[in-house]
């Protein structure tokens, strides 16, 4: 809720404005029936009613103006809050980095997009609450002031009728479920067929597949018609409520009229007060919006509560070798201590491969090495400087990353490779792409490097190579490759390795891998086991150990 309170405070003037306009509008709506009734009575008596007719005109104009003003102000305020909350959430998310996606990317997107916009609507919805309450309550009171029996008739009739309607509104849920099930079946069959598109293309069975996927369509139609029928019944039941209430009040009013207790004008006013009084539904809707907004705001607040890592002010020594050192580093993920007071020194300019079972913490180690995450204990140093003491810019210029499944960002393929804090000369982009064996397939695209990313569906191996190209395109003393060649076929892997071991030999390289061949090329292999480095030695020395060989399972899979 904090985020809503804050945006509400920044827009305090507008929020008060919405409340005032809403209350004004409600007051006008309550005054209008009285004025109408009074004018009508005067006119029926043949008396001069000019002023009262003018008052009615004025009230109607005022009602339109306040209503329009309130809607406009609410719309503008909500738009502004949405923009403000989104800007803030995006900036916070970027500053917090991968930590912000703790509960999964999909969840984070929902929070930043959907929840932020629901939360943004809360100040305006809350500001409209007093008016939403004032109108129906005022309507009932006005009904009672006109004639107390009218209020009695309304209050007695409303619960009875509401109960009647409510009973029918419940029946609709189960037809919706039937409909969604049929829809889900079609979606499942479609997704399966999309996955087998190449088989279908080769076998020429597209028509057959269409028929198979669309087989549940008649069932969908049947369920859909049932849904409309149920909805029709519910709507019809609800449509009965207000007219019957009105007629009840009018019947009582008519009897009172016949005994001279009410005038025709009073009856006109009463029929309008009944309408206002039944507006209690609006209040329920507004309350619902506020409650929903509150829940949404809580979810946005959780994103804003993710801590942002602090950066220092230090720079790295000018021509440092890029020596990486992990001192007594501990990392806890959930209930598990993944790294346990681990020590590892990677000499500047060397290449160290990190191997270990799946889940041994290789990726955690890779993330700590370039401060994508902070350790729960211990220190990570680059050229003797603890990473948190470096400025953010210095840190990112010094460390490059490539991942197993890189997320490519930027509009074009070239932008995706040049992705970084500053624009990059085009030669660097192509040089990186060549080293990563990506230049070839990028040039085959319709517009080469200028091809829009959305127009180029890449395979897993191609995405991995673009991610490598991105890492190769920028200089920096440390290069961390987190399983970044796992999807490459043997030939490409050999070529990328050539680039990695010859062209980038001056950089310190830390790479995690499952492949024996990759480990064999590294200067040293860091064998990660039980949260510690079990051994740090060349591959051919370690190969003698059966446990080590077992890490690579089926070795032919290289």
């Amino acid at each position, binding site marked *: 809720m904090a985020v809503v309170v804050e945006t509400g405070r920044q827009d305090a003037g507008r929020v008060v404005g919405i409340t005032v306009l809403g209350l004004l509008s409600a007051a006008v709506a309550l005054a209008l029936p009285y004025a109408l009734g009074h004018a009508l009575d005067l006119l029926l008596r043949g008396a001069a009613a000019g002023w009262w007719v003018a008052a009615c005109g004025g009230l109607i104009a005022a009602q339109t103006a306040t209503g329009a003003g309130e809607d406009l102000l609410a719309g503008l305020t909500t738009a502004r809050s949405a923009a403000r909350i989104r800007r803030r959430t995006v900036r916070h998310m970027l500053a917090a980095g991968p930590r912000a996606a703790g509960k999964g990317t999909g969840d984070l997107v929902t929070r930043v997009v959907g929840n932020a916009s629901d939360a943004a609507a809360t100040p305006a919805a809350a500001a409209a609450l007093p008016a939403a309450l004032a109108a129906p309550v005022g309507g009932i009171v006005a009904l009672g002031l006109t004639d107390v029996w009218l209020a009695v008739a309304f209050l007695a009739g409303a619960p009875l009728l509401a109960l009647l309607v409510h009973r029918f509104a419940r029946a609709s849920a189960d037809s919706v479920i039937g409909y969604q099930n049929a829809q889900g079946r079609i979606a499942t069959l479609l997704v399966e067929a999309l996955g087998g*598109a190449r088989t279908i293309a*080769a*076998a020429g069975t597209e028509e057959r597949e269409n028929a198979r996927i669309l087989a549940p369509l008649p069932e969908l139609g049947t369920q859909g018609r049932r849904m409309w029928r149920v909805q029709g019944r519910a709507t019809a039941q609800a449509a009965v409520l207000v*007219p019957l209430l009105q007629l009840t009040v009018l019947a009582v009013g008519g009897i009172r009229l016949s005994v001279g207790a009410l005038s*025709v004008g009073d009856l006109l006013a009463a029929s309008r007060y009944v309408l206002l009084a039944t507006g209690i539904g609006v209040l329920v809707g507004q309350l619902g919006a506020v409650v929903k907004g509150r829940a949404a705001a809580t979810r946005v607040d959780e994103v804003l509560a993710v801590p942002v890592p602090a950066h220092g002010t230090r720079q790295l020594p000018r021509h440092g070798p890029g020596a990486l050192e992990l001192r007594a580093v501990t990392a806890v993920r959930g209930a598990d201590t993944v790294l346990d007071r681990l020590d590892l020194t990677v000499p500047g300019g060397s290449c160290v491969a990190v191997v270990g079972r799946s889940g041994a913490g290789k990726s955690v180690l890779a993330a700590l090495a370039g401060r994508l995450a902070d350790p729960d204990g211990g220190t990570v140093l680059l050229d003797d400087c603890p990473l948190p003491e470096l400025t953010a810019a210095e840190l990112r210029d010094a460390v490059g990353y490539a991942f197993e499944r890189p997320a490519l960002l930027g509009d074009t393929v070239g932008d995706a490779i040049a992705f970084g804090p500053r624009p990059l000369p085009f030669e660097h982009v192509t040089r990186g792409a060549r080293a990563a064996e990506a230049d070839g397939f990028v040039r085959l695209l319709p517009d080469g490097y200028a091809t829009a990313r959305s127009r180029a569906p890449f395979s897993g191996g191609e995405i991995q190579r673009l991610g490598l190209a991105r890492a190769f395109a920028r200089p920096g003393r440390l290069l961390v490759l987190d399983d970044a060649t796992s999807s490459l076929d043997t030939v*490409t892997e050999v070529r990328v390795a050539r680039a990695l071991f010859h062209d980038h030999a001056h950089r310190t390289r830390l790479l995690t891998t499952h492949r*024996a061949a990759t480990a064999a090329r590294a200067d040293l292999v860091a064998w990660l086991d039980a949260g510690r480095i079990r051994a740090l030695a060349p591959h051919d020395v370690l*190969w003698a150990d059966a446990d080590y060989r077992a890490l690579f399972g089926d*070795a032919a899979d*290289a």
Partner: protein
Amino acid sequence: MRELRIRDCVRGRGAVVAVLLGWSVLEAGQTFLFGFALAHALDQGFLRGRQGTGLWWLALAAAAVPVGAYGTARVFRGIADLVEPLRDRLVRRVVRGGLAGAVRAAARGGGQPADSAVVSRLTHQVEIARDSLGGIVMVLRSFAFTAAGVVAGMITLAPVLLLVVLPPLAVGTALFALALRPLARRQRRFLAADEAVAEECGALAGGLRDITACGAQQPMAERADTRIAAALRASRALATWGVARTGALAVAGQLPIVLLLVATPWLLSSHRITPGALLGAFAYLTQSLQPALQALLHTLATSGTRLTVVLTHLTSTPPPPPESTVPEPAGPPAAVGSGPARGFLAASVPLPGGGAPGEPAGPPLPDGVRGGRSTAPAPKGVVLDLRGVTFAYGVGAEPVVRELDLAVGGGEHLAVVGPSGVGKSTLAGLIAGLLVPSAGVVRRAGAVALVPQEAYVFRGTVGENIGYLRAHTTPALVTAAAAAVGAAGLVDALGGPDAQVDPAALSTGERQLLALARTYLAPAGVVVLDEATCHLDPAAEAFAERAFADRPATTLVVIAHRISSARRADRTLVLDGADTTCGPHADLLAGSPLYRDLAAAWAAATTGP
């Protein structure tokens, strides 16, 4: 398939619309009776002190309420008859379009299509179209019949009332109609801007690790800011134009009330109207016309635009397949006939020239394939003959395959290796006829079955899946095919040929086994395995490859994921751009540096350094 517009949704559905309108008459009747009965209850009852008569009239109005509601309920059935066929059409389009797009992309060797986009279209956008159309028809009809009821009522009470009511109603509606287009434009911009924000935030959230690793927070924040600012502008414009709606509503719905009051002295003095009729007229204006008008304006301004946008989205996206990419298949395997690959050689296309089939002999880097154009005559018994084949993915793009010559003899086992992206899958597509070469000829003697990396298993029985490519199968054939490729254990574990398969419950390797068994049973003499065994362990892969190599009268082309596949082949084609070579293992070791590298990497990994 052209784009669908809103008016297409009702075109040609006259009967349905007539039924819909017929039931709406009941609603109009209820509207009519409300004011009419109120007027008479007053004039003939309450105002004359006759309470019974007054109540009787009101009871009549009350009785009309459930009747009108019954009409409303029946109207919904009419709406179902109007909307459900549209929904069917949209679902068909989404499914056909989605599958056609995926099949085209897959034939071209493209990556996986975005499943989530298609599913969102199917479940989310189709539903928006369905609800919006239902809503629009509902309010349009409701407004028309309420207005009709009001007009009929006023004519009965005092026709002169129409003079007061109709002009402002007409002006207000005209004002709204004028505002509708700009309003719709702003609504459309708003939807687009909001979608852009959602997309950007999605990319941001999904790429946080990479953004942090690349230090690109600042440019990304600026990009997001631009989109957020655009969305803010769009929603401001929309809110501002909302005032037009309120204005139109005031003119059409509220102005008549004031006019009626102003006209009252004249109406009363000329005895054109009774007090009861006056009350009835006010009731018509405030209780019936105004709510219907409000619903109409609101729904048209929002749902109308939404429906247009969604219809455009749903029906314009997959363009019709361009002629050039429609494969000219070697006949769909299912149609070729019975019996696994029997007699397919007899149907072979006559090929010119003579010479030995691709037996591994002769010069170090011999026959068949060459980067440059070969004039060597195609050998006898050749079932696959590629001559000067060139293929590029776009007019301006560099060719993926350039002037490739390749002849594969009947019964031969060829492996294809090379870096990914070099065109191995493209070659598979050319051989299978999924792709048509930009230049050169591909000749095939008989049917070709292509097994891609991503095995297709669908919800159905094991037998249906394995017999997918054959006109008639028996459980015995299914079991035999499964046993041949090493899937007997899997079929048993699944519960035999008649058991149901849940694709999601199978591992990728198990799916590949089923796809291999299916292909074993297919009536095709040429089998192309395009990394079709990559999820099997090496022993299972070797078993399956051997099964196809030993299958009678079968020519096997294996696009290799592992170099081990090349060891088993008679010949191996090393695709490496200009350095493309072809030959048996020993020759390639001697003559191809790339192949040597590969073999060395493979050896290092298997035996250690």
